């Protein structure tokens, strides 16, 4: 009997243990859609995702890159920045943009495209859930003054992102709501269609009355989010790119007339690119980053940008004090050099203006007016400095891509340099912190008032507002400290001023393409023939002090150059004005069509 009992018991146990419900294990740390979109706090959390997506994806190097993709694609594609590195083989990821030899598989293009798209998705997550702009036109579960503000902020961000995509890819998709998994986005018919839509969206946001507004030139917090001023900037810039200066004048004029923005004094120009200028009076929008010890913000702090955008300190006799905490002997990587012919022209125009001094150093300034961490004669005489073995270029291989000009505008300052501070105390290091000496905690600048003024000046050329335009140009010129003031408003002056004022600020390449389309510049001349071809004559600079057999060997620092040809492609007019759509994106969306010289890619098989 006992023997029978046990199998029965076991049989029961089997049934008991077969309870399938034990397999239902809810996911931890997440919530379901159905419990959301019901309060201001939730709207704020969703809006915060918009800014966080932008800060992580567009304004930082998140995604494993050692550089910020937007910064890199746009600036290295310009004619006045050279990818430098150790030699012509180094920093290939940057060089491909310098030399226009990227293609649809280039990782940085994909990263930038994806990060723009994800930031747009974050905007639509707010818009489609807190307004009726969704697939079925469904009314939101909850609405309040705050949710309306959140929707309008997201709308402006979405407009800006679409504009940037239109300037880089010509005909991106217009994504005006959350798309469901079974949908494909719709590609714009033309760049103009996107830009007109951008302007309309900005107008909608401005006229909604829900958008925050900067309270005064001293309102720093308003520079960290979408405001009416930024919407005006985006609408104005989009109009310029749509060849519609009248509309641009309207929005940029409103922005200027608002009185909420002002250029900082000449001597403070340099702070625009360093932490002390965060949120200053001329910032329209910056992605905000301050160190919060509760987060490991390495990526947000633009990891490695300090190394990339510093000179090649391993080739120097000691590390310049400005960046002396870069780890190790390898230190700076020499990521972006100012093109020497442009620097020369800039120097001739600006002389020793605060603007030029904030942008790059001359040979003398580099060798003798700047402090070197290894030097014992930083306060010594010129003679002592000339014979100081702790300064100068010690590497026998010299520094590639450099002439005798040493840019430091975008460098991460560990110690704000005395040449710029004038010896005044109280300035902050660009990196403070637990994120490491190779990161950058300065806010990521998107729009600066100087660009608005110069766009406005350009928009006024030939219109009834020329006087206002000239005033805008002069405002920038006066502030620069160059001493050159235009007496008439003409395109050449605006174009030149913009190049000096906004070097390495991500707008030169787009402007060149725009001006070429308007017949104002010849891109072949700019990229391929000017200065004998930028990449035909890449300088390398050496220091006699360290070069055996030269006159100054171990006596006196003196720089000299050699030139060599970088290889590879040239700018192809009718193709390189825009980037190709990334292959992976086309694999996911076979409808997407490339433009211009890239259109041959449209016939390529998708997938394999």
């Amino acid at each position, binding site marked *: 009997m006992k023997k029978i009992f046990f199998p029965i018991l076991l049989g029961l146990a089997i049934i008991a243990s077969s309870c399938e419900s034990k397999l239902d294990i809810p996911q931890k740390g997440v919530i379901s859609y159905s419990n959301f979109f019901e309060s201001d706090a939730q709207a704020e959390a969703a809006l915060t995702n918009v800014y966080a997506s932008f800060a992580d994806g567009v304004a930082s190097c998140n995604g494993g890159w050692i550089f910020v993709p937007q910064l890199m694609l746009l600036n290295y594609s310009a004619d006045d920045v050279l990818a430098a590195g150790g030699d012509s083989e180094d920093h290939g990821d940057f060089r491909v943009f310098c030399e226009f030899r990227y293609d649809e598989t280039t990782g940085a293009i994909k990263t930038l495209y994806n990060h723009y798209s994800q930031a747009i998705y974050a905007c639509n997550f707010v818009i489609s859930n807190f307004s009726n702009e969704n697939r079925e036109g469904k009314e939101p579960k909850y609405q309040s003054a705050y949710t309306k503000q959140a929707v309008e902020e997201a709308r402006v961000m979405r407009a800006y992102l679409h504009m940037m995509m239109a300037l880089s890819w010509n005909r991106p998709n217009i994504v005006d709501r959350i798309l469901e998994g079974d949908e494909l986005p719709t590609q714009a018919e033309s760049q103009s269609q996107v830009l007109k839509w951008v302007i309309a969206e900005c107008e909608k946001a401005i006229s909604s009355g829900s958008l925050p507004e900067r309270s005064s030139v001293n309102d720093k917090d308003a520079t960290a989010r979408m405001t009416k001023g930024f919407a005006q900037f985006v609408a104005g810039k989009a109009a310029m790119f749509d060849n519609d200066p009248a509309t641009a004048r309207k929005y940029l004029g409103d922005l200027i007339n608002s009185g909420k923005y002002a250029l900082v004094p000449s001597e403070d120009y340099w702070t625009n690119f360093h932490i002390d200028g965060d949120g200053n009076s001329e910032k329209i929008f910056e992605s905000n980053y301050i160190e919060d010890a509760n987060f490991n913000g390495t990526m947000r702090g633009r990891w490695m940008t300090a190394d990339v955008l510093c000179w090649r300190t391993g080739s120097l006799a000691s590390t310049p004090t400005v960046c002396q905490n870069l780890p190790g002997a390898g230190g700076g990587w020499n990521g972006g050099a100012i093109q020497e012919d442009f620097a020369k022209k800039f120097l001739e125009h600006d002389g020793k203006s605060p603007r030029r001094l904030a942008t790059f150093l001359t040979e003398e300034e580099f060798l003798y007016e700047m402090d070197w961490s290894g030097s014992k004669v930083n306060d010594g005489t010129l003679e002592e400095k000339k014979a100081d073995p702790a300064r100068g270029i010690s590497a*026998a291989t010299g520094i590639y891509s450099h002439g005798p000009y040493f840019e430091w505008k975008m460098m991460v300052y560990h110690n704000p340099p005395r040449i710029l501070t004038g010896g005044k105390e109280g300035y902050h290091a660009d990196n403070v912190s637990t994120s490491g000496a190779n990161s950058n905690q300065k806010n990521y600048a998107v729009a600066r008032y100087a660009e608005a003024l110069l766009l406005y000046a350009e928009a006024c050329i030939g219109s009834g507002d020329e006087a206002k335009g000239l005033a805008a140009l002069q405002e920038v010129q006066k502030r620069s400290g160059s001493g050159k003031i235009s007496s008439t408003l003409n395109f050449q002056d605006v174009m030149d001023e913009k190049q000096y004022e906004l070097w390495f600020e991500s707008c030169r390449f787009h402007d060149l393409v725009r001006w070429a389309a308007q017949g104002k510049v010849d891109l072949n001349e700019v990229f391929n023939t000017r200065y004998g071809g930028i990449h035909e004559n890449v300088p390398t600079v050496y220091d006699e002090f360290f070069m055996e057999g030269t006159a100054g060997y171990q006596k006196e620092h003196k720089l000299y150059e050699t030139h060599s040809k970088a290889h590879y492609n040239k700018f192809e007019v009718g193709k390189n004005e825009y980037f190709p759509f990334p292959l992976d994106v086309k694999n*996911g969306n076979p409808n997407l069509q490339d433009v211009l010289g890239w259109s041959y890619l449209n016939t390529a098989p998708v997938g394999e």
Partner: protein
Amino acid sequence: MFMSHYATEVCKCPLLGGNFAFAQNSAINGKVVDASGEPIIGAAVVVPGTSTGVTTDLDGNFSIRVASGTTLEVSCIGYVTKRVPAVANMVVTLDDDAEMLEETVVIGYGVQKKSDLTGAVASVNEQSLRNLSTADAAAALQGKASGVHVLTNGAPGEGAKIRVRGYSSNTTDASKVEPLYIVDGLQVSGIQYLDPSMIASIEILKDAASAAIYGAQAGNGVVLVTTKTGAEGQTTVSYTGKMTLQSISPKRPVMNRADMMRYVGLEYGDAYVKGYVDTYDKPNSAYPGGVIDTDWIDAYLEPSWSQQHSVSFSGGNKNGHFFASLNLVNQDGVVKGDKDVYKRLTAQVNADYNIFKWLQVGTNNSIERWSTKGVSQRGYASSFDSMLTLDPLTPVYWKTPDEMPAAFREMYDKVQNGTADAPYRFLGDENGFFANTPYSDVEGNPLAKRDAAESSNEGFNINGTLFANIKPVKGLTITSRFGYRIWQSNQHSYTAPFYIGRGSSDHYEISHNNSNGYYYQWENFANYDFQLGRHNFTAMAGMSYREDNSDNLRTSARGATGEEILSATDPQFHYMADVKSDVPKTVNSGVRPSRSASLAYFARLIWNYDNRYSLQANFRADAFDSSKLSKENRWGYFPSFSAGWTVSNESFFKDNLSRDIFNFLKFRLSWGRNGNVNVLGGYSYDTTLSVANNWYQYHVDQTGSTFSTAPNLGGGLPNPNLTWETSEQWDAGLDARFFNNRLTLSVDYFNKQTKDLIFKIDTPPELGASTSTVNGGRVLNEGWEFELGWKDTIGDFSYSITGNFSTLHNEVLELAARAGRIINTDASSTNYKIQTAFESGYPIWYLRGWQYEGMDANGDPQFMGADGKITTSPTTGDMTYIGQGTPEFTYGLNINLAWKGFDFLMYGAGIGGNSILPVLHRTGFKNGLKVYLDGYDKGTMPHPEKILAFDHPFWSSTGNLFKGDFFRIKQLQLGYTLPSSLTRKASISNLRFYVSLDDFFTLTSYPGLDPETASTNNTSGAGLDWGSYPTMRKLILGVNLTF
């Protein structure tokens, strides 16, 4: 363990053999019995070399007409064949042939006699595992069985990985393609904790039909381990001890001073070298002639001793069995100092008892305490990378700060006078400071890398089962088995600022990670054996519920530059508790408790007719929890079928073939389906919102973050239709034995196709995520497996030779719809362009690079373009298949010799058909493999100047590709057992001493440090040599003592 002593009561010789021819003699009657006196039915009694013979009847009796005194050979499968003179009324006692009879094979929820197997099961027994130097059961399988490839890692405590019949998945995560490990019925995550000396047998279920009983988790094969148990009537206490001297091969793959200066001179010009040398190269009295010529391998590695001790107690009687073992491993690797150690103490207790005739209960338990410390290897800026790339012109030590180059001296002085931004340590030992190179940006002395951070890892595991076997009626065994694992581990690390130039750290940092978890399974199943005439049936059915729980906490603190974070810096304060109250502490926000569960029902039916025909069918239904699959998709069904035909038991075979020549022949055929569920996880079918995973600061001048909420699309767009990978496999095999079982042969052919791989396909990023996870694609693994063995005894001399050889054809047949070639750039942090790719028509993760075509007239390296034209500047589009990191064949060889008290063992393992591409060339004043200089001298490699940049196509081409083939003598062992006449006086039943050379001899053409560990990278990076911990050579002195 349940049923591991499966009693075989009937001789499996056929009951009715044919009648042999009779000679003209009177009949001699006799009886054949086994050791216990039971009659053996169906034993063959023959006159050797003739066709004269009979078989025994149901009572073991026989009658044969031969002259008295004629030698008769009495044989039966499962017993040792015996030759005896014919006498009237003779009684022949046949001894059990331990190797034949005992060869029951564990097959999952039951056992089966090896001779009855219909699937492909590799079985490695206790003898094969004895006296191995490895402390890792997985490593012990290397070279022991066909179709089983073991990937080892040289570093102490790094477990070996097993691959059964190829590589099926496109995952890049090696842990997701591991076979299923079952120890005494308990599912475990690895078998590193088991000392080989505790193991009775390891079975590897290779074909899908065998593995199908484990369903959705068995797609990569199943490894079944049975630990030892006490034997009835034998009480033993035994001790084994090993002292191991570890060292590495004297081979130096990198350049010395003169070679490197020459090489760099060729790259950059002699003026460049001179510039450096003039600046930095100072005479150093620590080197002969004052000329620094550092051998960094010598500087970093040195011979070291390890120990292993094991004591075991075993005993048993009719009512129960007991086995206990205590095992200690103390391994200190070859890196100087004690920063690479593995310590383990394992206790195993196995016991069972027959409470009633119908009820047996038992338990198997193992308790493991382990700790490891490791050094960085196999990666950019790791200590082994430094060891191989650091120039020989840098001394190992600076004896005084005066010897430091300027930049270091500058910082040193700053630290001394308190003006440095952090209290940097300058690392060193009693010989001085660890010198660092002023020549390049290599992150410095490997010894400094070793000492820069302190970290330790330790934990314990308790694994066990409790079981009851109920036998209510004859033939029926109901088993209820509860299995459990409990684990806990702690990882501490502490780093204070240190200065090594590049790679320095300017802050204090401390972390403590704690993880703990428990797993349990409850399995209930019944086996029923019954006979209907000559039909034998075994039926099994059961269920299993498994649940895995883990909970981790990771905390850390990190100071700003130079900021002290601990209340004191002495080692007794290196804990989170000592972090100052105002220093922010981070708790890793991604860590949450996790639980996963699965439920399964399974059944098996085995039918055997007359020991000639066998059929077996398995079925399993598996369901996994909602973290892996949606409710609608959670169930999967895994059937299998196999058949066997023992030809040698057919009368036409027995009648016509002499048993002296051909003893056994069986054909097997099987088909089955398995899954791999490890590739799933993370709720990738479901759309949810993540809370507070990101933040933004709305205030420019003050901290204070606002948290965000966003759709949780980290894993891509949700796909509610996801399911596991599924493999289907055919296997055809034969087993044969010849010459009185002295020659054994086993051949298998398998064809395994895996489908529904997990692919990330591109989706428009506008949808919120740029990828989506889908099932699709097919991978083929196909191959032949051969095992051949010979054993014999000549007087006192006995010997055996066994070898195995397996081929593997691995090919991706198809990718998922809309998926393109998957590219991985595992070496991208070196800037090498080499890729590994997963693409249709090629082996998985093949090496994708350029085809090197020699040099042109200018000496520029040339490559084959995709258009078939030679080019000196190839593009990514010209990259192609250049080799595979996985082997095309593997093999093993075992030789055992014994003469009187001496025994000799040699065993080796090899692989072939794979390639290795070293990613160790660097630009600047850095060392590299000597083969590049030799190649230039021989004219087979370009002038170094032409290939200076590490992203030069040459480095990622066939020009830098080497054969990864190797054959390594894993063990060469000579032992001597003292005569028992001598030892018995000291109540010692067995005393053996041995000396062994393990991993000493390697045949390879690979010019790097070690072809074996070089190619053991992660799954997608196989074939790329990053600088890995080499296999250590081991000289072992050991003793085995049994009372």
